[in-house]
C-alpha cells in the first residue's frame, strides 16, 4: 500500500520557522512507523532527523506525535492507525532541536529531581535483602518506565507550566517510594508535595493513554498523593 507521511521539519541552521513536508512511501500494513521514517531517510531525504535505537519499544528513543498522539514510532504499525495518511511531529512542550528531535534535558532534570535511586543506609547483608513476591509486586508497574517522555509531554499541566515535575518523574519516584527495601520515601514525598509536584495533576489521563509501557500512571500519581495526604505507604 501507499502511505503519505506529512512530517514536521525544522532545521535551525536554515529555517526561520518550522514547516511540513510530505513524502509518499510504499509500505506493508505491518510496517512500523519507524520503518517508514527509515525508508524516507534512506531512499528519499537523508536530512530527515529523528532518534531511534532498539526498534522494539524498549529504549525510549523515538517518542513522537503520530497523528496527534504521543507514541513510540517503533511500536505503532501502519495498520494500527487505520489510515494511510500519517502526520509525524515532535513531542510538545520541549524545545525542538531539529525535525523530530527535541531537547530532553528539561525532562531529565525533573526526573533527577525526585531522587530516582535506591536509598537504604543500613549496611547490606551478605546476601540479598529479602523481599516477598507481594512486596515486589507493589511497585512492579512503575519499574517498567523507559523514560521516553511520552507521558509528560502529553500532559496539559506540563504544557501550561514546565516547572511541574510531570508524570514520568512521579512514576520514577513511585518506583522507590513503594519498594519495601527503600528508606527514602519521606524525602521524595516531601519533594512531590511541593507546589510543582503531584498536586499539579488534574487526572486528565493523557499520560496513561500515552504510555507505551502501559504503566497505570494516573493510578501511581494517586497513590503518591494518598501517601502524602495520609503519611502512610499502604
Amino acid at each position, binding site marked *: 500500500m501507499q502511505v503519505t507521511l506529512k512530517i514536521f521539519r525544522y*532545521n*535551525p*541552521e536554515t529555517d526561520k520557522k518550522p514547516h511540513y513536508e510530505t513524502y509518499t512511501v510504499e509500505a506493508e500494513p*505491518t510496517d*512500523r512507523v519507524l520503518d517508514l521514517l527509515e525508508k524516507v*531517510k*534512506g*531512499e528519499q*531525504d*537523508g*536530512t530527515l*532527523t*529523528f*532518534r*531511534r*535505537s*532498539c*526498534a*522494539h*519499544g*524498549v*529504549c*525510549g*528513543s523515538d517518542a513522537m506525535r503520530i497523528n496527534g498522539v504521543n507514541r513510540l514510532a517503533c*511500536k505503532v*504499525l501502519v495498520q494500527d492507525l487505520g489510515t494511510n495518511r500519517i502526520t509525524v511531529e515532535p513531542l510538545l512542550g520541549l524545545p525542538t*532541536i*531539529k*525535525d523530530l*528531535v527535541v*531537547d*530532553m534535558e528539561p525532562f*531529565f532534570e525533573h526526573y*533527577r529531581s525526585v*531522587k*530516582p*535511586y*535506591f536509598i537504604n543506609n543500613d549496611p*547490606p547483608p*551478605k*546476601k*540479598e*535483602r*529479602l*523481599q*516477598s*513476591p507481594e*512486596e*515486589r509486586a507493589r*511497585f*512492579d508497574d512503575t*519499574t*517498567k518506565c*523507559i*523514560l521516553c517522555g511520552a507521558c509528560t509531554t502529553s500532559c496539559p499541566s506540563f504544557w501550561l507550566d514546565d516547572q511541574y515535575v510531570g508524570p514520568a518523574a512521579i512514576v520514577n519516584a513511585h518506583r*522507590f517510594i513503594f*519498594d519495601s*527495601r*527503600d528508606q527514602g520515601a519521606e524525602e521524595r514525598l516531601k519533594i512531590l508535595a511541593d507546589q510543582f509536584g503531584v498536586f499539579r495533576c488534574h487526572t486528565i489521563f493523557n499520560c496513561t493513554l500515552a504510555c507505551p509501557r*502501559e504503566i497505570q500512571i494516573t493510578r501511581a500519581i494517586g497513590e503518591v498523593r494518598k501517601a502524602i495526604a495520609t503519611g502512610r505507604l499502604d
Partner: protein
Amino acid sequence: MKTHQYDVVVVGAGGAGLMAALYASQRARTAVISKLYPTRSHTGAAQGGIGAALGNMEEDHPEWHTYDTVKGSDYLGDQDAIEFMCYQAPDIVYELEHMGLPFSRTPEGLIAQRPFGGHTNNITGKPVRRACYAADRTGHMILQTLYQQGIKHGLTFYDEFQMLDLIMVNGKAAGVVALEIATGEIHIFHAKAVILATGGWGRVWEITSNAFTLTGDGAAIVLRKGLPLEDMEFYQFHPTGIYKLGILITEGVRGEGGVLINDKGERFMERYAPTVKDLASRDVVSRAIYIEIREGRGINGQRYVYLDVRPETVNKYAAIDGRTRPDGSPYVVTAEELLAKLPDIIDFCRTYLGIDPVTEPIPVQPTAHYAMGGIPTNIKAEVLADEKGTVVPGLYAAGETACVSVHGANRLGTNSLLDIVVFGKQAGIHAAEYAEGADFEPLPDDAADFARAQLEAILNSQGSERIADIATEMKRVMMDHVGVFRTAEGMQQALDKIRELKARFKYIHIDDRGKTFNTELLSAWELGNLLDLAEVTTISALARTESRGAHSREDYPKRDDENWLKHTLAWMHPDGQVELRYKPVVITKYQPKERVY
C-alpha cells in the same frame, strides 16, 4: 573545538560502561561519554537473566557454572577468566541487589532463578535454575539501576557525544575525540586512561536482535589504531528471533517450558540434544533450526519454525520430560503465570505479530545476536596489543566489545550480563588505579585531524552511492554466507562483496551537510565501521578450517583441537591488508572433550 581533561574517560553507558564508571569515579575524576542517552543503551533490551550460582532454587555451585561455560565455549574460552567470572557472579548479583535492582522473588523472598540453555547440574546433566531474573526485563533493570546509581553518585555524563577516534601517544591511551551530536562540534577528552565499552555490532547482519546503533564503533576504532581484534569469526546467532524482524524471544521462554516445533508438529530438538533438548546451547539449537528449514520442515516450507509456549504444550512436554517444581511436584503452568513471567515477550508478539503466544505458537528464526570476539583484554580489562599479551598502557575495554575471553566460540545465555558487570567493574578499578600512578601524555596538535578528515571525506564525496544500499548489500551477503553455516566458497563470495562495497563506500552520497544533529553523517561513518568489522570477521572465518561453537563450516564439519585450539588475532594494516596471528587458549582444569547436550 573544546578540550576537556579527566583522569578516566569511559566510552559507552550500557551495563559495562556504567559499572566501570561507578568504580572508576570512586578514585579518579571520571567522565562517561555515550552516543546514546545512557538508558537507551542496548543492555536495556536484555530479557532473560544474569547467571550466578546462588543456589536459591536448588543445588548449584560456581564450579558447575565454570564448567558449563567452558563447555559452552566449545573449549575456546580462557579458563582462568571463566573461573574468575563465575566465582565473582554471586557477589556481584548481590551487589546489584544492594543497589536496589528489583529482581523477581521466590516465595521465601530470595532472588528468583530460572533455567537457561547450557546451564546444568553437573551430576545429573539436567538443566539447573541459575539465571537470576526480573520478569523478562532483566537488562532493563540492570541498566536503570546502574544509571540511577550514577545519578546518586553524581557521575559526569556527556550524553549524545559520539567517539570518533582514540588518541594514542607513545603507545599509550591519551584520550578520545568525540562529536557533540547536537552541535556537530568536535571535543577532545584528554585522559590518563580510556575504557571502551561500546557494545556489539549485530548490524553487520540482515536479521538481528541488535539495535540500529550497535555498529561496533569502539572495535573498529581500535582496529584502525593498529591494534588487533580477537576471535572475530565467532558471532552468535540466537535461535529464536521473531521471523523477519529479528526481535529477540528470550531463551527464558524455553526455560519456562516452551518448545520448538517443526512443520510436522515434531519437537525436533529431541533428535539433536537428547538430554537437555530445547535448552541445548545456542549454536546447537540455531543449527538444528537451519537444518530443519533446509530439509523442508520449516512451517509451510518457509524459513521459520514455531516456538510454542502455550500452556497445554508446555505441560505436555514437561510431563514427558518428568520436569518438577523446586518442591518436587510436577511442573504445570497456567496462562496467568506465563503472563507474569514473560510480559514483554507477550507484548512484543501482540504488537508486532498480532498473535497471542498463550494461544498461538510464535514464528521464529535464528537472529544475529552477540559478538563473542572483540578487543582482546585480560582479567584486569587491560587491552592487549599482541599474541604475547603485551598490555596497551591506559587502555581498557569491557562488555560485548571486549574479548577476555569468557565466551570462547559460543556464549551461554545469561553470561553476557554477568560479563559486563564483572569486567566493567574490573575496568573501572584498574583504570582508576592506573590513572593514580600516571601522568597525562602531552596532547598532539593534530589529535582531531584523522576524525575530522574521516567526516570531511564523507561530506565532500562526489559520488551517488546511498548508505542504505551499501548497508543492505552487506547485511544480506553476511547473513547468507557468514551466518549460521559457512563454506569457503560462500565466504569468499562474501569477502569479494565486502571489498566491492568498501570501494563503493568512498563514493557515498549524503544529503545532510549541516552541523546540527547530523545523524546521516554519523550513520555513514558507522557504516564504515561495520564494513571493516565484516571484512575482518570473514577473513578470520575463512582461515579457520574447522567447526567450533558458532563457527560452523560445512566443508570442515569437525572440531580440530590439534590445529585450532587457539584464538585468532586480526590486524588491519593501513593499506587495508588483514593479518592473522594466533595465541593459545588458557586451559587450567578442563581438558577439551566432545561436546554433547
